[in-house]
């Protein structure tokens, strides 16, 4: 068991722990936007941690480039989905207004922010 294996194990367990906390958050939170906040943890940080752990374990393989590419795909695609889902959730009022401190979308709609 080398030092690289220990680093890899810590990274993978950290990513798995983030996935578990996100799952608990998805079940416990009350509205769609809060659930999205919780869902982004395994999508970006957790996956990047696990991929980093896998890259450390697989170092020297030709497929480490594919691992880096997976991380880039995730980083590029996650914001697009989050933006679409968030906009739809706001438009359909699947948001608890009392939890919002600032509602810039509504101010924009009224034309107060121009």
């Amino acid at each position, binding site marked *: *068991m080398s030092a690289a*294996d220990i680093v*890899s*194990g810590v990274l*993978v*367990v950290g*990513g*798995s*722990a983030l*996935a*578990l906390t*996100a*799952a*608990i958050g*998805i*079940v416990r939170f009350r*509205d*769609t936007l809060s*659930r*999205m906040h*919780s*869902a982004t943890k*395994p*999508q970006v940080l*957790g*996956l990047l941690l*696990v*991929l980093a*752990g*896998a890259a*450390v*374990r*697989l170092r020297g*393989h*030709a*497929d*480490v480039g*594919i*691992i880096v*590419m*997976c991380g880039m*795909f*995730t980083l590029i*695609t996650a914001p*697009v*989905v989050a933006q*679409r*889902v968030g906009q*739809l*959730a706001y438009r*359909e*009022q*699947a948001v608890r207004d009392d939890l919002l401190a600032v509602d810039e979308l509504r101010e924009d709609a009224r034309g107060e922010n121009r």
Partner: protein
Amino acid sequence: MNVVWMIAAVMLAAAAWITMFRLLAGPGTLDRLVALDTLVAVAMCAVGTWAAYSRDSTVVYGIAALSLIAFVGSVSVTRFRVPDTETRGDRGRL
């Protein structure tokens, strides 16, 4: 070292199990979509964990495929789904 992989596997399985509850119960289609995205992310984490455990890099291509197909699926659902307001009639308030 085996214990570490076992802990990671148990946490990932528990995460998928718990997320499945929101996927089945979630009151709106958007909640289900968010849960499904999380489930795919957990699956990608699991494949990455398997690659790290077995030092077998053939499954790594599966992570790339999953990330791209999950993106296409989520964007298609947000674009083409039937809004909850049409099926429920109370402006979809949860």
